[in-house]
């Protein structure tokens, strides 16, 4: 009896040790596999972009449609944990993400570099009260913001501080579906919302939404620069051996942005399906979304300015410091 017990314990301990070793090895193996993907095998292998359901998805949909079969594909992430797992598990070499998230990941030692910025602004503070045109009119009112401590929160706080309204306007937090539902129910009146979901709400209320702040315009007025929001990042190890693939992807994505801005057409229908909203809503949202391609080196001053503002208000949101030059691909 005793010996069986001891035997079982030893079995358990050794299998546990083996498991730890195995998982450890497996992770390192996959990492090296991707990093050292040899030339001949690389070209037919598809390049995957891991992207959230944000405007950056629209050009990606265009690319998936127009690129040669099987060379480019899209995978989506919803929560930050999914993105982390995707990077850790090498599920894709390319990731679209909010710039502050990328900077944060970089600060935490994840092997990523910023390839290009593709979405600017596209965020608004709206009110159901048609008389509200100015932020100052919202004293003692409550503005609902999706996600505490995220860019919408920080940028709103920045704006309030700049206009001397700090502490005069109340801020409350929720998630986008709840905020939309409460706006529709009329239980709340003011909110910060990103496109394209905002347009869905505009359509529902038939244009009774008063646009109080266009964050892109405010930013331009203050700094004379665009307000960078979303970027595409690349796995640094993968990038070292795939310069040609990256160049081709960059060119295609830039072209896709141009095409979408000019004539979205068929792309819009597929993208609308991905977003889970009617095509008409996405079409009406497009003019409110600033899709703009700037490569890493071009965008660097804007990104640094933006991250600098985030650092001042919420240092933790970018990992505690503005990233160094190595953060930008092609340096």
């Amino acid at each position, binding site marked *: 009896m005793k010996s069986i017990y001891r035997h079982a314990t030893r079995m358990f301990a050794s299998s546990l040790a083996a498991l730890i070793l195995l998982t450890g090895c497996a992770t390192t193996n996959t990492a090296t596999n991707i990093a050292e993907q040899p030339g001949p095998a690389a070209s037919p292998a598809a390049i995957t972009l891991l992207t959230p359901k944000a405007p950056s998805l629209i050009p990606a949909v265009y690319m998936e449609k127009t690129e040669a079969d099987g060379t480019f594909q899209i995978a989506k992430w919803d929560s930050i944990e999914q993105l*982390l797992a995707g990077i850790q598990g090498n599920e894709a070499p390319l990731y679209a993400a909010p710039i502050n998230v990328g900077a944060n*990941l970089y600060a935490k030692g994840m092997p990523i570099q910023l390839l290009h910025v593709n979405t600017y602004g596209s965020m608004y503070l709206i009110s159901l009260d048609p008389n509200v045109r100015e932020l100052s009119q919202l004293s003692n009112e409550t503005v609902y913001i999706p996600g505490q401590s995220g860019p919408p929160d920080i940028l709103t706080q920045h704006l309030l501080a700049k206009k001397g309204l700090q502490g005069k306007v109340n801020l409350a937090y929720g998630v986008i579906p709840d905020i939309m539902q409460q706006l529709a129910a009329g239980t709340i009146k003011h909110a910060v919302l990103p496109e394209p979901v905002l347009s869905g709400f505009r359509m529902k209320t038939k244009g009774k939404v008063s646009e109080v702040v266009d964050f892109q315009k405010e930013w331009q007025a203050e700094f004379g620069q665009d307000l960078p929001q979303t970027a595409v990042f690349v796995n640094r190890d993968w990038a070292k051996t795939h310069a040609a693939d990256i160049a081709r992807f960059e060119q295609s994505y830039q072209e896709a942005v141009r095409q979408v801005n000019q004539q979205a057409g068929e792309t819009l229908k597929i993208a609308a399906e991905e977003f889970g909203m009617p095509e008409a809503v996405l079409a009406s949202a497009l003019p409110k979304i600033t899709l703009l391609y700037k490569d890493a080196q071009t965008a660097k001053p804007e990104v640094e300015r933006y991250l600098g503002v985030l650092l001042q208000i919420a240092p933790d949101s970018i990992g505690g410091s503005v990233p160094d030059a190595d953060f930008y691909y092609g340096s």
Partner: protein
Amino acid sequence: MPIFTTARNNWPSGLTYLLLLLTWEGLSRVYPPVILPGPWESLQTLIGLYEKGRLMEPLLYSFLRLAAGFGIAFLLGTGLGVFAGAQELVFKLVSPAVSVLQAVPPVSWMLLAILWLGVNGGAQIFVVALALFPLFFFNSLQGVRQLPKELLEMARVFSVNRRKQLVDIILPALAPFWSAALTVSVGMGWKTIVMAELISGQTGIGASMNTARIYLKTEEVMAWTLLVALLGMALEVLVRKITRPRERRGSAACDLQESR
């Protein structure tokens, strides 16, 4: 020999904790800290949170919410449970509703509570109260159903007053059921509160965890997790200690002989 046996009996669970810690430490060495921070790092982060004064306020908020939700659930649950145990009609009316209540997952209540009460309302308290209510209800019901009728009959014949019946027969009979309900529900309520705050709160441990996760501060998420788990276990032990009937004598008294 007895000492040896005791040591052997206590040893396995200590070993399990040690193995868990070692596994955690081992895995944390394989993965980057943002994916899995190690035990030591998590503990240091926890101490750091305390030193920066960011620990006590969320803790207090969560505790107050737990206390409020717990109190509401206890009062309503035991009240209705005792009532339903005594009156068959009340049981038939109320019990299906409570069963339905119990089947609804706390997450659904959470989402609905935010809609009904707003983000700033007592959504978290509401959810905890609803999650724990059925537990108190059914346990009180069971307790009342299993009251020692013979003793109550005896008390009635001897015209013993109501207060003495309550204190010496009814409450002792209900105590084990309440003890079970309290022990289970304090742990469950604690976890539910944190989850509710994570989904909707702006204050409390759950909200702090959410901020930490958005900022990718996994070591803080882990530190809070550690704290919630340890406090949950401590609460359960505490409640069990408080509610369990006191040991009144040793086993030696058992061999009392009939005195003739």
